[in-house]
């Protein structure tokens, strides 16, 4: 038992003596948490908007004004020819061009019908879709508010209109604050990456240096050695989580509705999974570079398929099945459920159970595949 203590002591000494790594382990991730939580958003804002007004009427000006007033669009240019507009699109100077035809006003007054030309840079398909929705909304509103010189009789049918009033309610995040959604997720990411890479590379490093062989010649039991090795990184992970939660609360005002204890309980088990994976990787690689590569490979795939940036429901069935084996997915779910919805022990039992089994599996595999004698 004391032997484990000796290993742990040595590991901590080595971690804290590595002056170059300390800022990378602590400062860098937290810096990233702060910066990147601000960056990660799918909201569409500041859309570069331009118009080509061939009508120059009060109607066209009113329409342009409607766009100028919108917070989503920045009116950056106006063109006098379609060629100009096309070139600007190619250069990337504008993303949306509104082309108002020369008979716009006349069409509205006389025929009560008019068309508009809209060009949207659709390279980002999802963004283009959203931009289109915003444009349609503005046009519809404009549609309703048009005043004409001719008075119209109120339509008799208006009085028999049945109205279904829809009330949208946004629970847990009334302001639709994207940070509330992203910060817990990014924190998961950082804790995962740091613990995985450090644990994965650690044993391989000793392999490369020759000290692992020295250890294998001592009578130390496999499991003592491994526990001693991984424990400091477990502490590190919890430490990172703590500081990250503080930042989330103080800087981003992310709500903490659920039990903090529950969060720590879950994270403790989760980190064991990650450490097990790191150890497993290090048993099968010879150099630090290899270990890091393999870890990187799986990390990127796991992150992309974790539901952190894109919803899992949107993935095809086969991809959804793969995500069932992704520990990060469960962590992200639990973080959001506990922090933002106040979910309790019972609610996260399925995730907790699966993660626990995963931890058991990975660590058993890792210990079993570590050979003191070849």
């Amino acid at each position, binding site marked *: 038992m004391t032997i484990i203590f000796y290993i742990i002591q040595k590991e901590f000494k080595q971690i804290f003596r590595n002056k170059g790594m300390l800022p990378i382990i602590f400062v*860098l991730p937290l810096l990233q948490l702060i910066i990147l939580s601000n960056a990660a958003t799918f909201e569409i804002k500041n859309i570069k908007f331009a118009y080509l007004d061939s009508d120059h009427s009060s109607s066209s000006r009113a329409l342009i004004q409607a766009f100028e007033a919108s917070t989503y669009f920045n009116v950056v240019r106006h063109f006098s020819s379609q060629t100009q507009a096309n070139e600007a699109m190619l250069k990337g100077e504008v993303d949306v061009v509104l082309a108002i035809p020369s008979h716009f006003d006349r069409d509205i007054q006389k025929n009560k019908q008019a068309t508009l030309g809209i060009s949207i840079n659709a390279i980002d398909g999802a963004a283009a879709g959203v931009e289109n929705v915003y444009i349609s909304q503005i046009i519809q509103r404009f549609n309703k508010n048009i005043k004409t010189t001719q008075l119209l009789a109120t339509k008799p049918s208006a009085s028999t209109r049945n109205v279904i009033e829809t009330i949208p309610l946004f629970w847990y995040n009334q302001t639709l604050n994207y940070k509330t959604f992203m910060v817990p997720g990014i924190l998961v990411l950082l804790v995962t990456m740091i613990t995985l890479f450090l644990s994965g590379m650690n044993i391989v490093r000793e392999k490369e240096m020759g000290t692992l062989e020295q250890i294998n010649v001592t009578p130390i039991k496999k499991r003592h050695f491994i526990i001693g090795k991984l424990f400091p990184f477990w502490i590190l992970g919890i430490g990172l989580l703590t500081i990250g939660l503080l930042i989330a609360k103080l800087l981003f005002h992310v709500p903490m509705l659920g039990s903090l204890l529950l969060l720590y309980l879950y994270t403790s088990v989760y980190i064991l999974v990650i450490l097990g994976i790191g150890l497993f990787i290090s048993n099968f690689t010879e150099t630090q570079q290899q270990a890091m590569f393999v870890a990187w490979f799986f990390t990127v795939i796991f992150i992309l398929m974790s539901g952190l940036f894109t919803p899992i429901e949107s993935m095809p069935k086969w991809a959804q099945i793969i995500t069932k084996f992704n520990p990060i997915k469960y962590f992200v779910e639990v973080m959001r459920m506990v922090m933002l919805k106040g979910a309790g022990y019972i609610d996260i039992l399925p995730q907790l159970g699966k993660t626990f089994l995963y931890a058991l599996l990975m660590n058993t595999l890792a210990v079993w595949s570590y050979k003191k004698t070849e």
Partner: protein
Amino acid sequence: MKRFVGFVKKEFYHIFRDRRSLFILFGMPIAQILLFGFAITNEINNVNIAIVDHAKDATTTAIIDKISSANYFSIVQIIEREADIPAVFQQGKIKAILNFEKDFSQKLITNQHAQVQIITDATDPNTANTVSNYINAILQQYQKQLNHEVSTPYQITPETRMLYNPELKSVYMFVPGVMTIILMLVSAMMTSISITKEKELGTMEILLVSPLKPFQVIVGKVFPYIFLSIINAIIIVLLSIFIFKMPIQGSLFLLGLESILFIVSALALGILISTISTTQQTAMMISLMGLMLPVILLSGFIFPISSMPLPLQLISHIIPAKWFIIIIKGIMLKGVGLSFVWKETLILVLMTLFFIGLSIKKYKIRLE
């Protein structure tokens, strides 16, 4: 010159004998492209919703039918009591709940006004907003049907053209991004590790004492990775053309040149990292933590830069990946030539020269 060639050969041997790393070097971009092409998407699909129906009459049933026939939604649960809603959300499976008030049809006919709540789990605000809008749109459609609605007096019809990507395929946006990430990470990371490894092992000094000039040592080390990265780039482009049918509108030659420019800038960055790292571990962690996340998140790859707060937009200017993404999107999807991306190209060239200059300076200091 012969010495130099011999040195480069040794570097190639190092790389090609390390099967595991090689596998990942090439497997990674392929896996990513496939994932992004087939699995990662922001579109809304298969959203689970639940219904609380206090009325249970003809109208509500008709509305529920209409919603369940829309492909985006699956109605998976009927909730009997409103008080059960929080528990349902907490379980995490349901994203939206429709709550019809009592005597819905009746109220509609008598008072011409009935209420339904669209309650969404807004922990994911993006999905919540979109789902809410979709459901609302369906309800508005139903309302129109109900009223045999005459169209509003004025009808302005927008004719919308989606440029460069008419089918709104998400792959179009992701492929340039993935290519950028892979090139940058592989080049920068591999280079920094390779050089730092020699430093750590002590063999760097041997190299520096050899007749090879320091500049030859660096170039020799870096050369194989240019080669590898180019192969990676070609694989990615081929995959996108043949599997995703993504057309390359512009000049392949220009694409190639710009890619090489970017690769060189990433390599220069890698060299810079190696000058400030003493151990492989440090080099790796800096490349990963200091490079990967910022590049993914601030380069405009997934999240639009224009939506970020101003300070971050400014920071994104110093990330070479951001400029390269603009360039390849332009060439691949818009089909533009150099005249349209010369500005971004120039910036990349300047950045590369800066990195190289800085590295040379740091190495000179080291050698003194």
